[in-house]
C-alpha cells in the first residue's frame, strides 16, 4: 500500500513519507503527562495574552501563585474554592461511566442551594449538627431532582441528555433569580437581590484557619466516587451498561436502570456542591452561589479521563487558579485569564493525547 494512501489530509501534506497508526500499548500515565504538557501550553498562551496586554507574565503568575497557594490562608481559600468544582466534577464522572454527559451541573449546584434554603426556612432543629446533616442531604436530593427530567426522558424516550441538562441550567438559574427577587428577597440586602442569610448555627465550621469542613466532605466523596466507579458492583454494571447494549443484555444488566441511577447520583453530587458552598461560603442564596463551577467541572472531569482521584487533584489546582484569577483583577488583569488557561489546558492535553494514542512512522522509499 502506498504511503500517501494511509495518511489522511492534512497529514499527507505535512509529512508525506510517514504513516499514522494507532498504538497498541498506550502509556498508563498518558493522561497525566498530557495534562502536564497541556498546562504548560496553557501557561504559554496565558503569557502571550498578558504580554499583549502589557503585563509581565512572570509578575502576574508569581502573584497568582503567592495569593492562591503561597500561605496557609490562601491555600485554604483555594481548597474551599475547589470543593464545589471537585464535587460537581465527580458527579459528571459518575454519569459518564454510563457514557452520558451532564452539562447541567451548574443548575444542579443552584438547585442544591435552593433545597438547603427551602428546608432551612420551613423546618427547625435544635441540634445544629443533625440540622446541617439534613440540609446537606436535602442539597443532594435537590441536585438529583434537578436532573430528574433529563434522566427520565433519556431512559424512557432517548431524548438527548446533553441538551436537556444544559437547558435545565437556564431554568434553575431563572428560578433562582425569581426567588431572590420575589418570595425570598431579603429586604436588608438593599439593591442586591439575595435571600436572607441562614443562621450561624448551620454554618459549616472550619477545620482550622479558613479551611472549611466542606473540604473534608469533598475528600470523603472523592473516595466514595472512586469506590463506586472502580470497585463496586454498581460501578461494574454501569461500565457494562455504558459499553455495548448487547453485552448488557447478555449479562442481564438493566442498562436503562443503571443510567437512571447514575444520573441521579451524579446530579446529587453537584447538588451537594451547592449545599456546601451555601453553608460554608456564601451563607445565603443569590446568583453568586456558583461562578461557572458547573462548566469548569466539565473541563476538570474530561481532562482527567473521568478519574475521581485525578478530578480531586486537578480540581484543587483549578480552584487555586480561580482564586489567583480573581485576585489579579486588582492589578488590572482580566479575571477571564484563568478561564482561558483552564480551557487551553484541556485543548493542549487533547492535542498531546493524540501523540500518545497514535504513532507517526517514517516509511523508507521503494
Amino acid at each position, binding site marked *: 500500500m502506498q504511503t500517501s*494512501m*494511509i*495518511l*489522511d*489530509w*492534512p*497529514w499527507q501534506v505535512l509529512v508525506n513519507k510517514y504513516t*499514522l*497508526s*494507532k498504538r497498541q500499548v498506550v502509556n498508563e500515565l498518558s493522561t497525566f503527562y498530557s495534562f502536564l504538557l497541556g498546562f504548560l501550553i496553557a501557561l504559554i498562551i496565558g503569557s502571550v*495574552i498578558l504580554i499583549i496586554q502589557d503585563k509581565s507574565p512572570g509578575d502576574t503568575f508569581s502573584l497568582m501563585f503567592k495569593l492562591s497557594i503561597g500561605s496557609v490562608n490562601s491555600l485554604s481559600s483555594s481548597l474551599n474554592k475547589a470543593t464545589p468544582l471537585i464535587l460537581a466534577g465527580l458527579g459528571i464522572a459518575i454519569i459518564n461511566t454510563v457514557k452520558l*454527559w451532564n*452539562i447541567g451541573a451548574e443548575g444542579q449546584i443552584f438547585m442544591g442551594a435552593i433545597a438547603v434554603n427551602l428546608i432551612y426556612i420551613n423546618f427547625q432543629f435544635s441540634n445544629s449538627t443533625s440540622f446541617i446533616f439534613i440540609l446537606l442531604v436535602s442539597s443532594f436530593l435537590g441536585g438529583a431532582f434537578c436532573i430528574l*427530567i433529563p434522566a427520565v*426522558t433519556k431512559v424512557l*424516550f*432517548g*431524548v*438527548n441528555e*446533553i*441538551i*436537556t441538562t*444544559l*437547558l*435545565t*441550567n*437556564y*431554568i434553575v438559574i*431563572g*428560578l433562582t*433569580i*425569581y426567588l431572590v*427577587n*420575589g418570595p425570598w428577597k431579603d429586604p436588608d440586602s438593599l439593591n442586591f437581590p439575595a435571600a436572607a442569610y441562614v443562621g450561624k448555627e448551620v454554618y459549616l465550621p472550619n477545620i482550622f484557619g479558613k479551611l472549611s469542613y466542606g473540604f473534608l466532605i469533598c475528600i470523603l466523596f472523592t473516595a466514595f466516587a472512586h469506590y463506586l466507579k472502580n470497585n463496586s458492583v454498581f460501578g461494574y454494571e454501569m461500565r457494562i451498561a455504558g459499553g455495548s447494549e448487547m453485552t448488557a443484555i447478555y449479562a442481564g444488566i438493566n442498562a436503562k436502570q443503571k443510567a437512571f441511577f447514575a444520573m441521579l447520583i451524579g446530579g446529587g453530587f453537584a447538588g451537594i456542591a451547592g449545599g456546601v458552598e451555601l453553608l460554608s461560603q456564601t451563607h445565603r442564596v443569590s446568583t453568586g452561589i456558583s461562578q461557572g463551577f458547573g*462548566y*469548569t467541572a*466539565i*473541563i476538570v472531569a*474530561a481532562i482527567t479521563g473521568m478519574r475521581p482521584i485525578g478530578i480531586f487533584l486537578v480540581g484543587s489546582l483549578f480552584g487555586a487558579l480561580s482564586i489567583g484569577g480573581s485576585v489579579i483583577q486588582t492589578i488590572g488583569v*482580566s479575571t*477571564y*485569564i484563568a*478561564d*482561558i488557561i*483552564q*480551557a*487551553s489546558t*484541556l*485543548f493542549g492535553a*487533547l*492535542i498531546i*493525547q*493524540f501523540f500518545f*494514542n*497514535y504513532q507517526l512512522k517514517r516509511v523508507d522509499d521503494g
Partner: protein
Amino acid sequence: MVDIQFLGLLNATLQAATLLFIASLGELITEKSGILNLGVEGMISIGAVAGFITAVNTNNIFLAIIVGVLSSAIFASIHAIVTVTLKQDQTVSGLILTILGLAVSSLLGKNYVGKKLETKLESLFSIENPSNVLEVFLSQNIIFYLAITFTIAVSYILKNTMFGTRFQAVGEDSKAADSMGINVTKTQFIATCIGGAFAGLSGVYLTLSYVPYWTDNMTAGRGWIALALVIFGGWKPYRTAIGALLFGFLEALVPRLQTYGFELNPYIVKITPYIITILVLVLLTIYKGGKTGAPKNIGIAFFRENR
C-alpha cells in the same frame, strides 16, 4: 389596517428566528459531515464580539460582518484540528470551545461594554415603520435575506447535486466515502469551519442589529437552542427553519404577553422558552420513535487504518 401589535410581534419573530436559524444551519452543515460541534454558543460569542469591535472602531458595517464571520470560522478550526485531524472526542472539544469562546470574547470585549454603535445594520429597503405584513418582511436587514438564500441553496445542494450527495456520504459512512475517493478529513475540516462562519454571522447579527451593544454572555444560551433546532429539524434545512420560526415566535411572544392582558411574573416568563424547548424536544423524540434522521457517523472520528 393590520394591528400594529401584530406587526411588531411578526417583526420580532423574524429577527429572533434569523438569529437562531443561521447558527443552526451552520451546525447542520457541520453535522452532515459527521462532526458534532457543541461549541456553537462560543462561536456565536466570538463572531458577536469581533464584529462589534470592528464596527465600533471602523464604522464599517460590512467589514464588521466579514471580520465576525472569519473570526468564528478560524475559531471553529480549533475544533476541526482537535477532532478531525487529531481524532479526539468531539463532545469534550465542543464543550471546551464554548467555554473558551465565552472567556475569550469577554476578554476581548472588556473595554467595549456599554459602548454604542455609531451605525447599526440598517434594513435593506429603508422602511422605518412598516404598516403591513409585506413591509415587515421588506424592513429586515441583509442577513435575513442571506438566511433565506442559504436555506434554499443548502437544501438544493444537499438534495439535488452530486457534490451534496458526496458530502452527505461522508457523514453517513465515511469509510465508503473514502473508498469512493472522497477526501473525508478535508471535507469534515471545511464543513466545521463553515459551521463556524455561520455561527459568526449569527453573532454579528446579534451585536450589529438584534441588540446593538456588547455585554458578557449575551448569547444567553441561543447557541444551545440552535443545536436543539438541528435535532428538531431532523437535519433538514427547511424543517430547521420552521423550528427557528417557532422558537423565534416564542421568544418574541413571551415579553409581549403582558400587553395582551396576561398577568405574568417577568422572571418566570423569562424561563418559559427553555421549558418549552425541552418539552418540544421530548415530544419530537417520542413522535419520531428514535428515528431522528441523524447522520450515522456523527461523533465518530474517521481513521483510515480502521477499515
